[in-house]
Each structure stands twice: as structure tokens, then as C-alpha cells.
């Protein structure tokens, strides 16, 4: 090592421990992968010095994140003036770049004179949206979403951003859930907005998008592209329907139903009613919403017994990939509805009173209660 003659193989003989240290400084997985492709010695050294496993990142709206027990103040390379809306797919973050200072103010700074500042519906801001991948450093602008959203009041929220394929946002469809509607996007191609869809949570299951309504109905939304890559929605249908009470009218059939989809028999519906009797209480809660208000799947009810406290129920649509081999196959994925009951007693902190999980049985058109998750 004392010899100073430049030999071509010196760097490939770098001690594995030292190469491991170098790898630790490479934050992008792409850089780590390319390092392994350089030569045999590096590849075998890298094998022992790759991080034990890649832990998930929990990214907060202000751009800070936690991973593997450590807190980091900012995602590497994150652009300025952005709020993080969510993660769209493998490593992709959906960002909102805005001059809306309210949105970027963290909670504690919003506390003024013991009162939290609230967003104002009369103050509007310009927003631009983009996708950013901190592992590869790639950025994809979403001008389509800018034009869908435009100037918006501070109260407006983007609820969820999904990517149909998790790796290449530039070539595939995106799904954005706005407050009361959904928008399908194809970066650089166009968008289509599904207004008044009345779904409060959406998830991709296979190639199709699913949503749940306040009545806990499951809606399947077919997404397609026309010849120019413009997203279109050829068909929306209800996969799971809420059981109707005797003589009750299905108020939403005009939104979802094609005539040729009426092929269910009454027996099924009666059966459903037994275990999903919450259906009718949903109805009452839902009527309290204004037309402009958002059905977001959260309902509150005042319980007289036993605790005289508020209970809120929220619902989410979750895709569960089973851990068995070939897990990304449609066959092995399940669509779950998670119903979360929160109790908020008057003088103490809210707590989770219970969680119900249902599996979507699309063939039977039912939610099937799930007791254990595999």
C-alpha cells in the first residue's frame, strides 16, 4: 500500500469495510445498484454491506421523514416551497408547490392565543403539482392537475394520489382524489375528472380503480386511454351494494348503474343486511352533509350509552398483498375495507374503540368480515 505506482486494480481492491462506508454515503438506491455492476470485487463486497434491509420511509407533509428509528429533517433533494401530499407508488412523492403559507405552517405555529388558525374558504392560492422520486432524483411535472385544480381556497385538500404502475409515472395513468371527486391523469397527455362520484377513498386493485361511498358501497371504475393517451372512464359500476330497507329507493342508481348490471337476487341482499346493519345509520349521518360538503367517510354519532361520548367512524380502502409467492398477482391481492371507530370522551384523549375489517368478495357482491390477517 505504500507503493505509489498507479495500478488499474487498486480501487477494486478497496477493503470491503471501506466500500461499505462509501455505500453508506450513497443515498439513492440507483447509485448503490450501479456500484455493484462495476466489478466482481465490488459486487461481492457490496453484498455484505448493503443495508440489512430497506426500511420504509414515513414522510411528513413538511418534507421531514423517519426511517429505521431515525428522524431526518428533509427528504434529500426535495424542492423548495412544497408540501408533501402523499406517496404515489414505489418511492414517488406527490408534491404541492404553493405560495399558500397556511398550508406550510406547521400545527404549533397555527396556535395563536390558544386558538388554532383555520383555513379560509375565501382565500385562494395558486398551486402546482409534481411527482418527485428521492431515490432516483427524477421529477415529473403534472400540469394536468394544475389545470384541474387551479386557484383553490385554503380549505381545499388533495386526499390521495395513486399511480397505477408504481415505477414509471411518465408513461402511465395517475389517479388523484380531490375532495369530492376523482381525476384520472396521464402526465403530459391529459386528464378526466369524475365529479360527484361520492367516493371518499380509492385504491388500485389490479388495473382497475375501486372506491367506497359513504354507504359502504364498493364502486369499480374502469380507467382507459383513448388513442391519444387521454384518460377516459368507459364504465363505472357498483360491485358491492348497500342492502336496501323494505320499500327504500336506491337513490344513487343514476350515478353508478348500467341497466345490464341488474343481475343480483334478493336473497343475497337479505343476507347482507344481517351483518351490515349499520347501513341505515349511515343514511342518517349522510343526510347532514350539504351538497357542497364532502362525504369523507367519517361519521359522528352521539351515544347515550354507555359513555355519553362522541364516537366517530372512518373507513379506508386498503389493498392487502398476501405474503405467499407471486404476491403481486391479482389473485393474491385482496381489497379490504377498514372501519375504524374512535371514541372521543369529553375530558380525555380520544382512543380507538374498535376496528372492523372486511374483505371485498366481488363475486358475491359482499363485504366479508375478516378476523385475522395473514
Amino acid at each position, binding site marked *: 500500500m505504500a507503493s*505509489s505506482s498507479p495500478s488499474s486494480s487498486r*480501487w477494486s481492491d478497496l477493503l470491503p469495510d471501506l466500500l461499505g462506508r462509501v455505500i453508506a454515503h450513497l443515498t439513492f438506491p440507483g447509485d448503490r445498484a450501479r456500484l455493484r455492476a462495476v466489478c466482481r470485487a465490488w459486487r461481492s463486497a457490496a453484498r455484505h454491506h448493503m443495508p440489512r434491509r430497506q426500511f420504509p420511509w414515513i414522510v411528513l407533509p413538511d418534507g421531514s421523514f423517519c426511517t429505521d428509528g431515525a428522524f431526518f429533517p428533509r427528504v434529500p433533494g426535495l424542492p423548495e416551497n412544497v408540501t408533501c401530499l402523499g406517496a404515489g407508488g414505489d418511492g414517488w412523492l406527490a408534491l404541492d408547490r404553493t405560495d399558500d403559507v397556511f398550508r406550510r405552517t406547521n400545527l404549533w405555529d397555527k396556535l395563536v392565543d390558544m386558538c388554532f388558525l383555520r383555513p379560509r374558504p375565501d382565500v385562494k392560492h395558486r398551486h402546482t403539482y409534481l411527482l418527485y422520486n428521492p431515490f432516483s432524483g427524477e421529477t415529473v411535472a403534472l400540469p394536468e392537475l394544475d389545470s384541474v385544480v387551479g386557484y383553490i381556497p385554503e380549505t381545499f385538500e388533495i386526499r390521495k394520489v395513486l399511480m397505477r404502475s408504481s415505477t414509471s409515472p411518465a408513461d402511465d395513468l395517475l389517479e388523484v382524489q380531490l375532495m369530492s371527486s376523482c381525476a384520472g391523469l396521464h402526465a403530459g397527455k391529459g386528464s378526466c375528472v369524475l365529479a360527484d362520484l361520492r367516493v371518499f377513498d380509492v385504491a388500485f386493485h389490479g388495473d382497475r380503480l375501486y372506491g367506497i361511498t359513504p354507504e359502504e358501497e364498493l364502486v369499480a371504475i374502469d380507467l382507459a386511454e383513448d388513442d391519444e393517451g387521454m384518460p377516459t372512464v368507459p364504465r363505472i359500476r357498483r360491485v358491492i351494494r348497500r342492502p336496501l330497507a323494505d320499500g327504500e329507493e336506491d337513490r344513487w342508481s343514476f350515478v353508478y348503474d348500467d341497466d345490464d348490471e341488474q343481475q343480483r337476487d334478493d336473497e343475497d341482499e337479505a343476507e347482507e343486511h344481517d351483518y351490515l346493519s349499520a347501513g341505515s345509520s349511515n343514511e342518517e349521518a349522510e343526510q347532514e352533509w350539504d351538497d357542497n360538503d364532502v362525504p369523507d367517510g367519517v361519521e359522528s354519532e352521539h351515544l347515550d350509552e354507555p359513555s355519553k361520548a362522541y364516537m366517530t367512524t372512518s373507513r379506508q380502502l386498503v389493498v392487502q398483498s398476501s405474503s405467499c409467492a407471486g404476491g403481486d398477482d391479482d389473485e393474491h391481492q385482496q381489497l379490504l375495507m377498514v372501519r375504524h371507530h374512535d371514541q372521543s370522551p369529553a375530558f380525555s384523549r380520544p382512543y380507538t374503540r374498535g376496528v372492523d375489517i372486511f374483505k371485498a368478495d366481488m363475486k358475491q357482491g359482499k363485504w366479508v368480515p375478516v378476523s385475522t390477517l395473514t
Partner: protein
Amino acid sequence: MEVDKGKGEAEETRKVAEADRDTVTLKSSDGKLFEVSKEAAARLSTVLAGMIAGGSIDDNGTDLKQIGSEALENVVDYCNKHANSIPSAALISSSISFNTAPFKEPEEWERKFVDRLSHDALFDLVEAANFLGMERLLDVTCHKISEMMKGKSPDQIREVFNIKNDYTKEELEEIRQELAWAFYDD
């Protein structure tokens, strides 16, 4: 008792005594001698700290047979520069660290220090730092090496580090397929 001796000689002795207290002498593999502040050496190198504490420091030059003169000069240079720069609190408190503790970015002078090195000198320095257990210097040098790789293709990395591609064509194809997502140029 020193009164009997000449004034100049007394001065000389005192100087040597002072040197004994504040600095250690290190000897490179090719026999060159370097002096480095004892405090800085003990603070920056776990190995030197151990040798100082264990009394195995040789006044006539502690033999570091694994380190060439050029690398040792850089090590000593780094220690002296570090001793002169204000020790940052974060560096000292680095003991509270997770496995994945956020690396503290090199300071301006550290960046300049590694930037001026040739590739060979950098290679020798990183190994010397490793041998002497100099955590911070290892971080700074490894950070520099990682900077030289970032965003580069395997071909470009090989070119930068003058590494021979020892994969067969078939292996290369296999790697390419396995890591297809990592190659931008496809």
C-alpha cells in the same frame, strides 16, 4: 542544577521537553518523521489515543509501517488543520448516533482538503484513516469517494477509478437485467 550548563543548551532541553509533552512523532513506512499535536492525534484517532494512553509512543518516531509518507503527511496535515479549526459540537457529540445517524456534511476546509488530493493519494488516505481508526477522516474521505460515483453509470465509474471490467459478457447482461431499473441510459 541547570545553572552549570550553557544558556543555549538549557533552552534546547526545554524545547525537547515541551515537544515531548505536546506532540507525538510518527514515522512512515519509508522512514520519514512527522510531528503531530498529541491532543489532536488522541482526539481524532482511536489507535493513536490507545498508543498514547498505553505509553507505546516512541519519542524517536512511532513506527507506522503500514502508512507511506505521502499518506502520513496528509493525516498529520488533517490533524493539524483540525486542531486549528473550531471543533464543532456536533462532531464531539457524535457518540449519540444511530446506526444510520445522519452524516454531518464535511466542513468547507475538509472539502477543500480532500478535493486537492489525487485519486491515489485519496486511496492511501482512506486506508491510513482506517488503519488509525480516524472516524471523521474516514467519513470525509468516503463521502468524497461516494460523490465521485453519484449519478454515474458503471462504465463512467470504472473510468473514474481506472477499474478493469472483469465481468464476462454473459454476466454483464445478467446484471443489466437484474438492475435494469438502475440504469438511466437504457
